[in-house]
């Protein structure tokens, strides 16, 4: 009874938890993921309450993980492929507008009132409490006091804008010590029990010593995105002026929201637009970006947002000449790379397997163990060792010792397209031949000895036996594994990235491309190499292409190797 009660309350809690997550996700604009969680919770309830769903209970945890970490990302990727998500287009449109309206970047200084200020900090014994401070202002001869600004616009954890009120010191609860009108003379501010001591002022030599602390501990944390509101509505903010000094200035917002009446198909429509306060001109909106028009009638890029672009990313691969050319090169090299990796590593691994398959060979276990070591070393370690110790153009072992010893000229491994490709292939063969050797060994042991005996009786020589018996039977067994290996090499990002990082670069391309780049490393560079501009949309489109290629190959492979039947057993 108690057990049942416990399990019911557990199910209840689980439901509440999942619903809460879904609700939370909806609230934060993660609609797709929220919907997925709703579906999940219904599925789980179905599994639990319907006896027919019993088998699924075991699968449920795996299903949750796969949904969140595989299905959702795939959905996200497919969606991204149809947008312009990337450098300059990071946020939804609403957020972009919000930034234009609130971000302190989009303000301008007006007037040149003299604003003096002095910062006071509360101390805990001798340690300054950087999160508890007051700022005393002297604006046009009047003293104002402001407390720590309070965030008023937030985006998740990030504060977009904080605000604090400027209160005339006489009408506040704070007392100056001494009671003076001159900022430099005021040493302390008290309020009841609490005292704030002078900490920083740009005017006073002694307090200027604290400038680094003021900048790093207070200005950057609390004041950079803050505005101080005067009783008459004027706003003041900390800005770096022409001399590089941090001073307060009166500011005004650069943009405001407005409505515009337009005619669309002869029907009047109202559209939200953003207007520049200085010029009173509306911003231009084009291809997912806002542009401002300045005094010289030039368009200035302001901020971009994520916009739906349809099949444009796919069409760019086919039509944009600066993408198509390098893309085609990368595409061909990817196939060549995967194919050569498999063929060459088999060409190295198979002879070893043939030699080690001889049961009369002494110490073959030791040989096998030694030969397997390259496979056992983590790939990133091997890649780094090869890159740094062996292929380094000026210090590497190959260029410094091996080639001179053979009387050959040194090779520019990282800068010559051909040799860079040779280098990555060499490392990959070194890494994968043990795998080929191992699977060949396994397959060789499955070939019945009687076949060889029969062949010997028929007078077949060693070579003939290899071509007619060993090789065909071996291939029948390892062919599916070779195909998988091909698919794996196709996406073998780590080696390429760690050894050449795709370089040397292909000249004349707008996207970051290199001669050793394979599709997947190209995708990575497009998506994550911030230096050259990110283009998640294009990256996602190419990923979908890769998926269809690799998935297709693997599907056919599963089909023919009979994995389907085996699982269905």
């Amino acid at each position, binding site marked *: 009874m108690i057990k049942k009660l416990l399990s019911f309350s557990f199910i209840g809690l689980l439901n509440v938890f999942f619903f809460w997550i879904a609700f939370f996700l909806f609230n934060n604009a993660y609609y797709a993921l929220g919907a997925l969680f709703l579906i999940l919770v219904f599925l789980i309830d179905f599994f639990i309450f319907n006896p027919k769903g019993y088998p699924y209970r075991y699968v449920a945890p795996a299903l949750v993980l*796969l949904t969140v970490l595989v299905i959702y990302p795939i959905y996200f990727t497919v969606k991204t492929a149809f947008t312009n998500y990337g450098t300059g287009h990071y946020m939804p449109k609403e957020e972009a507008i919000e930034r234009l309206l609130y971000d302190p970047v989009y303000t301008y200084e007006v007037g040149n009132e003299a604003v003096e200020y002095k910062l006071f900090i509360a101390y805990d014994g001798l340690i300054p409490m950087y999160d508890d401070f007051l700022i005393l202002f002297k604006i046009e001869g009047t003293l104002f006091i402001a407390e720590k600004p309070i965030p008023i616009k937030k985006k998740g954890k990030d504060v977009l804008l904080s605000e604090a009120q400027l209160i005339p010191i006489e009408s506040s609860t704070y007392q100056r010590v001494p009671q003076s009108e001159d900022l430099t003379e005021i040493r302390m501010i008290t309020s009841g029990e609490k005292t704030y001591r002078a900490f920083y002022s740009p005017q006073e030599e002694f307090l200027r010593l604290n400038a680094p602390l003021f900048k790093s501990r207070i200005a950057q944390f609390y004041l950079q995105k803050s505005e101080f509101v005067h009783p008459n509505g004027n706003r003041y903010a900390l800005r770096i002026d022409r001399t590089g000094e941090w001073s307060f200035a009166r500011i005004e917002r650069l943009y405001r929201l407005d409505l515009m009446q337009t005619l669309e198909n002869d029907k009047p429509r109202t559209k939200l637009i953003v207007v520049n306060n200085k010029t009173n001109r509306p911003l231009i909106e084009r291809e997912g970006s806002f542009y401002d028009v300045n005094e010289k009638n030039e368009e200035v890029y302001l901020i971009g947002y994520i916009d739906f672009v349809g099949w444009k990313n796919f069409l760019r691969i086919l039509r944009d000449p600066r993408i198509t050319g390098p893309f085609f090169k990368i595409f061909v090299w990817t196939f060549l790379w995967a194919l050569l990796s498999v063929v060459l590593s088999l060409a190295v691994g198979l002879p070893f397997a043939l030699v080690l398959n001889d049961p009369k060979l002494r110490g073959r276990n030791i040989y096998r163990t030694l030969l397997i070591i390259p496979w056992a070393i983590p790939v990133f370690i091997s890649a780094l060792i090869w890159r740094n110790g062996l292929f380094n153009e000026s210090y590497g072992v190959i260029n410094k010792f091996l080639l001179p010893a053979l009387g050959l000229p040194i090779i520019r491994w990282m800068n010559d397209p051909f040799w860079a490709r040779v280098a990555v292939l060499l490392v990959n063969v070194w890494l994968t031949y043990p795998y080929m050797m191992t699977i060949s060994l396994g397959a060789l042991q499955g070939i019945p000895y009687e076949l060889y005996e029969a062949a010997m009786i028929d007078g077949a020589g060693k070579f003939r036996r290899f071509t007619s018996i060993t090789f065909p039977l071996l291939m029948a067994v390892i062919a599916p594994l070779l195909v998988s290996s091909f698919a794996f090499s196709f996406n073998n990002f780590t080696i390429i990235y760690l050894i050449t990082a795709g370089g040397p670069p292909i000249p004349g391309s707008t996207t970051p491309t290199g001669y050793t780049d394979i599709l997947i490393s190209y995708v990575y560079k497009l998506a994550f190499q911030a230096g050259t501009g990110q283009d998640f949309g294009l990256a996602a489109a190419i990923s979908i292409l890769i998926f269809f290629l690799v998935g297709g190959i693997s599907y056919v492979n599963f089909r023919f190797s009979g994995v389907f039947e085996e699982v269905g057993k």
Partner: protein
Amino acid sequence: MKLHVHAILIFLIVVILFPTVWVVTTSLRRDEAAFSTDLFSSRLTLQNYVDLIVQEQNVPVLVKELQKLISRVSPYDRLTLAQARTKATELLRKMRNYLDESNKRNDSARKSYEALVKIFETNANRVKQSTLNDLRQIEKVLLKTLSELKIDKEELAFVLYEVLSKEKFNSQMEKILRSAVEEMVGFKIDDEQSYALAMNLLRQTHEELGGASLEELETLSARISSLRSEIESLRKTLQPLERSILEAQILLNGDVLTELRSLTTAVEALVKMKDSLARTTAKSVLPTDDTLFLKSLQNVASRLRNASLSLQGFEDLLEIGKTARHLSERLVELTNIEPRLKSLTTYSDMVRTYEEIRPRLERICDDLETLIGRYSDELSRLRELNSSILLKESELQRLSQRAEELQQKRQLLELRLAEERSWLQLILFEDTLKARLSSVEAIKSLSRTDLQRYSTVLTWLRNFANSYGRSDEVKESVQKAVSDLRWIEDYRTFTTRFENYSKNYEQIVKEFEQVMADFEKICDDLLVLSYSGTFVTSEHLTRLLDLVKLDFVNKVRADLAVVSRRAGSLMKLSLFSEAQKLFRDVDKHLFRIDQIWKEKMKHYFGRWVLNSIIVSTIVAIITTSICAAAAYPFSRMRFVGRRYGILSFLLIQMFPSVIFMIAIYNLLNFLGKFVPFLGVDTIGGLALAYLTNIAYNVYLIKGFYDLIPASLEEAAIVDGATRFQSFYMIVLPLARPILVVVFLLTFIGTFNEYVIARIVLQNVRNYTYALGLQSFAVGPYETEWGLFTAAALLGMLPMVILFLAMQRYLVSGLTRGAVKE
């Protein structure tokens, strides 16, 4: 028969495993392997491992910590004044200890060094004897070889003439070669006259063999190089000319043209006025004085016409020429006025208006004339220069061709002369050899000047070995002497650099101690000031840090490295066995001194490894348990999706996971705002991102479950167990081997993952081992191989051992489905 198979296998394994061997040896090296000329080194140390595991707080670190303490920044911002005081004394004490140790080491190094010098000096005689032996051996072989050389008489004459043609009678060279020449010509040479006679004879042979062409080649190449420099200087004069021409053109087409146009409009207005003359009748009171007007008109018009004519040839200036001509025509028009109209008021107005623009017109004429004059002058000079450059270039080409032909001839000749040239070289060598022998004999000890002498002998021998073309016994013996003597140079640098090091070291340490003592005096005051709420930095500490980071690095470290390296190569020298240990001592002490003062890279190796282990363990546990549960129904029950479930997921997981990271990164970013330990740049978030490898493991485990007989469970169910109990208590324990395999595979896979970690983690302290290792290998650390290889080995060893221990399972898992029983 099997032996060759083993030999080949072993050879291949050595080649294949070379990278690992390199890692092991490099991680143990004391020197900077990247800059060494040896593949392996005998100077070994475990210092790299020590640096990885315990980071020593050496002098630079201590100075920085003190500075932090004084400025009260993290990690010292929470200390009380009393605590800070004790901390400061502790840091200062440590620093003092290091200084003491460093000084002690320096003293011991000094002592060993002095002992070394003594040993070398007592053995000076032995060195001398062996050098003399080598030189005598060379002499012996030399004489033998000289007698064996096949010398063609004519060719020898050629070579002799070549050398002697530049020499005078009784010059040193001539004296050496005199006997050879005498033998050649058959008479004695004892004065200028006979010498000239002999030279004449030689010259004949020289010319017969083609010596003239050689001479021609020489003059040709001299001429070619002078031509080249002439062309160069011409080009240089060309440049300012071009610039000035361009300037004139810009001026003409710009300001001048505008002025001309505006003048044209003004003059056209005048012309209109003139045309309207006929229609007016008002007469002026006084007759207009227009002589000046007419004169100026004609003058300006003709000047403009001339200017426009001279501009005709220049295509770029057509526009301005046309404008000038147009203006001049207009002006001429103005002169044609019927005399009767001249008495009208309008005419006098016209004249007055003209007076206003007259200065402008005249000025523009001046400008035009000077500019055009300059322009055409410069243009003709430009043309001249260009044609002379072309001329010179064509000559250069002709000469170069000829030079090439001659060069070919000369090469052919050189082939024939090789033997004779060697002979000549040997003869000359023999002569100097005697001088060298006597100079070595004069050496008494191994002082600095003596070392200098040996060194000259060595360079001389080395130069000979490099320039001597034949490979014969002479070359061999010279090379042997060179290799015997090579240590002299090592020893020389060793001593000079050691003295240098010693001087600079003492000077820097002295200043360091001085500044440190000063600091100690005011340390307490600074702390009190800092604790009164002011930001304090200590000038003394800045100076100390400068001493360590700049002075020590610039003045001491280079010498230190050289001394150590030379000591390393001298160690191998078997000349004096008792010196070996001393060299080792010097090297050891200096290495330690370097370690004390060197600013080392800050890293978090231990933390990185720990992070990796934590992430891998979490991921392996969660993945294994989830997959173990998920695989069960696939093996035992019938339900919709059983047949294609795993496979669809296997296929779906072919989706390139790199691109997932955009979504997962966003997700973690979002999650991190509410559950901090699962955010971006956290270990938890990374672990979450790794939990994707499910389908393949379910497939593996399901295969194993299939092998467990179902009857066991049936029996349990009959005994009253629920389905879950039978899974939990019977299937799971039996499946332990595969669960262990899946656990370890996931562990290894996660430990070895690089890309996702690269994307998720940003802070150096949160790195996993993979990222940390990469940070040892890129940018400024690309050549710091010691730490990198040590870290690589430490990470590699457990993985390799784990892998090798599991290879049986791994192989069977891999080939399952393909290799069927």
